């Protein structure tokens, strides 16, 4: 059952176990809809310097992917009244200004606002579902699918969130799930798909031999240092 505005209000002031946390709510009159709350764009953005990045293979060694992400991801913080310019076809990660915390019997769905959609701004491509028990800021996958570049200002209402009541409290909510990769995030988080257990199995299948954990290139078992990147080997 989708929550109406009065039920959302009740949840915002309910006891800790049943409470939905959304903070800051700067102007409730502006943000509340009949069955949703508008969310604002935060100040942190993440873009990939694609001219330098050869590509991401989730089956590469974890250490290599982590290093690549640090190396090729650019963090951009925008403070008002400045804006980020998103060019056609450009992709950036950002997050909600609001910190969200869901109880174990509420799931949520993040959607773009139609005013922005009509301009060609997608705020998420596949990841609009929020599990019960989640806490943190939600990551936006901003994409300009229009033909003109436009300015994105932090603090503007680009998305809306609606809430769904579960029949019963989840016994396996996001906060106790084994692989909760994005719990507690306060900045846009880059994909951690390589942490998924299926890739561990894939790595074993693909990497029959010795590989450097830093650059992922083949090494021999006797090497003390990687001859490609110089990393000291265990």
């Amino acid at each position, binding site marked *: 059952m989708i929550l109406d505005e009065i039920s959302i209000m009740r949840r915002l*002031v309910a006891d*800790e176990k049943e409470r939905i946390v959304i903070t*800051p709510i700067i102007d409730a009159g502006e943000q509340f809809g009949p069955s949703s709350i508008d969310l604002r764009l*935060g100040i*942190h953005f993440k873009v990939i310097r694609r001219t330098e990045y050869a590509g991401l293979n989730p089956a590469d060694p974890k250490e290599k992917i982590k290093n690549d992400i*640090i190396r090729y991801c650019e963090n951009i913080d925008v*403070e008002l009244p400045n804006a980020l310019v998103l060019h056609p076809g450009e992709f950036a990660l950002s997050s909600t200004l609001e910190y969200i915390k869901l109880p174990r019997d509420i799931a949520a769905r993040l959607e773009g606002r139609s005013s922005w959609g009509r301009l060609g701004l997608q705020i998420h491509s596949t990841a609009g579902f929020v599990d019960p028990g989640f806490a943190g800021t939600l990551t936006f996958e901003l994409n300009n699918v229009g033909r003109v570049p436009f300015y994105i200002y932090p603090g503007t209402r680009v998305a809306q969130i609606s809430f769904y009541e579960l029949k019963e409290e989840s016994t396996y909510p996001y906060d106790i799930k084994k692989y909760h990769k994005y719990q507690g995030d*306060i900045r846009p988080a880059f994909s951690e798909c390589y942490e998924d257990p299926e890739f561990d199995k894939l790595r074993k299948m693909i990497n029959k031999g010795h590989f450097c954990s*830093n650059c992922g290139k083949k090494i021999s078992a006797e090497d003390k240092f990687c001859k490609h990147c110089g990393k000291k080997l265990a």
Partner: protein
Amino acid sequence: MNVKLVKLLLLELLERIVLMENFLDNAHCHAAEEADYEVIGSFRDFIKNIKGEIEASVCDMLTDDEREIHENTLYFCFKKTLTLSHIVNILHYHLYTVPSKDVVLSETHIFLNNFSRKIDYGGYYAPVEPTFILWNSYNFRHLKLPDVIISDMYQSLLLKEIMSYRDTIRPTTIIALPKIEFKNSFRWCLLVHELGHAIDTKFGISEKVSKEISASKEDMKILKEWTREVFADLFALKLLGPAYVASLAFFSSLERVLKPEESHPSPNTRILILIKELKNILKKTPEVVEDLINFWDMRCEYGRKYGLDSTENPDIKDFNFGNYESKMVPMVKSEIDRICKQKFNKDNYKKATELCKLVAKGIPISSSRDYDDKKLMKDIDKFKEMNEDIKVILLPKFNEKPNDISEIMNAVWIHRSTILEEFCSTFFENNQKSFEEKYKTFRDELKNIDKITLKSIGTADINSLLMEKGEKE
């Protein structure tokens, strides 16, 4: 010897180790050279050894019932903690050699600019907007650009033309913070002290105050330096409240608490001045501040008892601060009162104690609702029977008001104190958990607090800006 003191000192030490480990986890080599990995590897080895030492020779001895721990055992633990702290300080200092891609966070700018805006520049000066650098200590420099570009190494480039423009270029204010503390937002309280130096330099206050005090020629040099420090301390206290005293107290390593230097009064002298003023600000001393004062007294008492004040500094042997303190401190205070538009007061503290409850629940506190939850629930129930406009009656009550950064920092400090108090018993409990498990819980807890603080600071500014916009409309 006090068991709690030793446990708290040990937790302080562990906190520094957590910081170093967090830093090394994110350390990254651009060129991935062999030597870089050697450096990171050796730091990791050092830290592993220190943790091993703590586990084997200190923690295990403190797990018994507090009443049953022998005085000699405690003394041994105390000394061992001191030695290990000293080693960690050295490691900490040299961590700047580790290659990393860390940069100063935008939250640091937001944090300090927020305090800079609380100053009345009288319309004559531009607000101080410092440039931050990551270094190995907290520091302040006021530099002219040509002095930065043309250092001693390039004397031959010292062109007459450039030098003639030297005095027309506005000096740059540079504030440094330790590389490993770039995310440790609670310690940023110390940055307000550095901002105090920048404000002091801009207005020439300590220069003016020290000139007005009649001191001998020998004393004048030290007096000037100490006035600068007292100004920066009281400035930070007036803007930040008790959180500043706490961060300074925990920052001062035990072996130095009683030792004055030519450039700084001893941490004990500084803290005593601050505590006196803090009591004036808060009127009634809350329990958590009382605990802080007791903890500080204990530190100094043991410092004296175990000879940590024994080395005399020949440069300041003949300088008696007592001759000048009573005159200098009130003058500095009145100058701060003159330039600070908005000061920390007991209402801010009261708000912080409320916000602290939210921090404990893991909720960021950049803003909060004025309305009580239970009252609001009743209003919602009543609303269903009324036939009124929801936009007028109910929704405005959900609006949150931005909290001041000083309130945020104090709420975080109160929460941290509670957490440390809890860890004082749980960390040393003789239970099934291994040292590594307990350490991980401690590290996660500190990480969570940092996340909440960073989110609260990062959002605080934009909240106020959007709110201002709304109000103007």
